């Protein structure tokens, strides 16, 4: 119970008028940053980091983590309303969130997303409070083979859980990997696929691809359908909060599953983005409403949001206990800690208990404050849909261009964004799934380097992936997922040729 005592001490630190004010400011800024594509949580925290140098470390980290919570909440808003994920981890939220907005349920989707975010984050904070030392030890065992196994499972689950043609999923995913391999090879330092073009040195940035594929692609699709903006019929009723909350208790199992997936991915560190995809995929596979996913199911919004936020929050656990950031934003926060003269790691808990427990207490408070703030603003967010399309369309193209430019400060990326926009339109039309492409682009480099490192360790022996129970079980699960469609076909053939046809 030492943790509880320490936590109450932390609440005493965090619960001051000054700190609550910092939380409100931080969350407002964070939501703005989350809504704008291209200005991610990591950028936002990095830009505001210098402003906090004059503050005491506890106040500074409360402000910065609040920005992080705000960005996590804010990413869901544009995903649901415009089908533009403001952050990579809200890509999975668009699958059901945007159809809900098209069906006139934007307010319910937003309330569901915010509540789910809150539940996921609180679950992860509880985990940080009590399980920090235990889990940290476990994560220390991760080598390249284990990392590759986790990444392999993530990709395989797309093939196993995707709708539509498995071949189109594979093609789309491999295109992502191919694009990710462009540029400087991280292991040997050779240039790949650049063909002498300097602009390609840095490779294709996934944010540019995401902004083009989703943002510009969506604008093209809406333009083709005529001047109506999908979801413009959203009715705004103030009882949306109560209406949505009534539906949520039924989904407790989805919440629990996504929380566990999210915490696992956040700590390992898979990060919030794969966590949100896995949360969505698992819910789609296991939920009663699974077949309706993609058509605007509230559960399809809840599952990825819960997982993403559990992961985003849990990513702070390895940062605090080991000094290994679990996400880009956590990495920036880590930089902040060092600048304030604090050495992250197990000793931080002993030497700076006020700071650590103040931070953990502020995670609870920051999420409560954040939830209250975003929920009261739902009608304001949904009102954005009433703006005429002939204003929204060029304005979104403008914001997309800004987002693409800021990734590398290069006009080349803006041109790439336009090309990705056309690709996004075509893929959308022909039902090539976009999420596998984006995820392969995000994780491609990491997956490749952990694969090559694992191969180096074992001198080319593939059995390294089955060398211990942890890695082996993840890899086996991944293989089952990858060949799931084939297994399904086989099973269908076996049952139909059997004497009694089983009712589906």
């Amino acid at each position: 119970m030492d943790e509880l005592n320490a936590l109450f001490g932390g609440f005493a630190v965090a619960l001051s008028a000054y700190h609550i004010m910092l939380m409100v400011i931080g969350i407002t800024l964070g939501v703005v940053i989350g809504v704008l594509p291209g200005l991610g949580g990591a950028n936002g925290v990095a830009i505001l980091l210098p402003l906090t140098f004059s503050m005491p470390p506890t106040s500074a980290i409360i402000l910065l983590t609040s920005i992080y919570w705000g960005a996590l909440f804010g990413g869901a808003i544009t995903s649901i309303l415009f089908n533009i994920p403001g952050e990579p981890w809200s890509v999975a939220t668009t699958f059901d969130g945007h159809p809900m907005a098209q069906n006139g349920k934007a307010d319910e989707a937003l309330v569901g997303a915010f509540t789910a975010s809150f539940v996921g984050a609180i679950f992860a904070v509880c985990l940080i409070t009590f399980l920090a030392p235990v889990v940290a030890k476990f994560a220390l065992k991760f080598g390249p083979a284990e990392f590759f196994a986790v990444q392999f499972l993530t990709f395989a689950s797309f093939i196993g859980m995707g709708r539509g043609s498995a071949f189109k999923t594979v093609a789309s995913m491999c295109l992502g990997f191919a694009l990710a391999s462009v540029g400087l090879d991280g292991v040997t330092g050779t240039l790949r696929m650049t063909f002498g073009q300097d602009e390609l040195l840095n490779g294709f940035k996934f944010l540019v691809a995401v902004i083009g594929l989703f943002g510009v692609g969506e604008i093209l699709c809406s333009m083709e359908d005529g001047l109506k903006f999908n979801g413009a019929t959203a009715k705004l009723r103030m009882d949306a909060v109560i209406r949505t909350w009534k539906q949520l208790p039924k989904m407790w199992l989805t919440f629990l599953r996504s929380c566990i997936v999210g915490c696992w991915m956040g700590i390992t560190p898979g990060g919030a983005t794969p966590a949100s995809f896995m949360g969505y995929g698992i819910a789609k596979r296991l939920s009663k409403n699974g077949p309706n996913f993609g058509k605007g199911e509230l559960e399809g919004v809840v599952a990825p949001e819960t997982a993403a936020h559990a992961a985003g929050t849990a990513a702070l656990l390895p940062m605090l206990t080991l000094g290994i950031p679990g996400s880009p934003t956590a990495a920036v926060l880590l930089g902040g800690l060092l600048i304030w003269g604090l050495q992250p790691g197990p000793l931080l808990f002993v030497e700076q208990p006020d700071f650590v427990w103040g931070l953990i207490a502020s995670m609870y408070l920051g999420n409560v404050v954040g939830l209250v703030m975003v929920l009261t603003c739902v009608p304001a967010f949904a009102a954005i849909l009433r703006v005429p399309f002939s204003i929204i369309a060029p304005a979104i193209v403008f914001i997309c261009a800004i987002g693409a430019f800021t990734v590398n400060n290069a006009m080349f990326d803006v041109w790439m964004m336009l090309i990705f926009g056309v690709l996004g339109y075509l893929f959308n039309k022909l039902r090539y799934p976009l999420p596998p492409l984006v995820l392969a682009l995000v994780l491609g480099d990491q997956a490749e380097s952990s694969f090559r490192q694992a191969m180096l360790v074992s001198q080319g022996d593939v059995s390294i992936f089955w060398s211990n129970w942890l890695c082996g079980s993840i890899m086996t699960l991944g293989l089952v997922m990858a060949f799931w469609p084939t297994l399904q076909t086989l099973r269908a053939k076996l049952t139909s040729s059997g004497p009694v046809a089983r009712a589906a």
Partner: protein
Amino acid sequence: MDTNDEAEGRALFSYRTLDIAVALFFLVVCAIVVTDSLRLGIAWKPNEGPQPGLFPFYIVVAMGIASLVNLAQALPHTEDGAKTATTVPGIKRMAAIFVPAVVFVFATNYIGIYVSAAIYIGAFMVFFGKFPLWKAAAVSLGIAIVNFMMFEVWFLVPLPKGPLEAALGY
């Protein structure tokens, strides 16, 4: 753009045509990557591990196989494949946002992103949204100025600027 025109919109491409085109696009990407992977080497080097081309090579081989299957599935004339994917009015409407967007990006190089965006948004509102000129001017300038304040002044993110911003001292 009245609805009659839309209903009778001339078919431009069928799903079959588009599917074949995209499958071919994948195969072209595949060929490009395979060429460069072979240059980089796809073998196993003793004590050095896999050469840099190995991973991309096998990835695009998988992509090539999947695309060939997609192509094979798209080739036969089927009822689904013959359905209209895009119509002439549809393409025209898309061009209405996309062609100006290309001009907008091109102009950004010379007059900066804010002026370029204000013209782009304003022109689109007048010609496509049929807004009166004063409304279009107010909205487009408003959006450009708000973004200018947000990125240049508050967040200190430098974006491409042109002669106008230079004249204002930025």
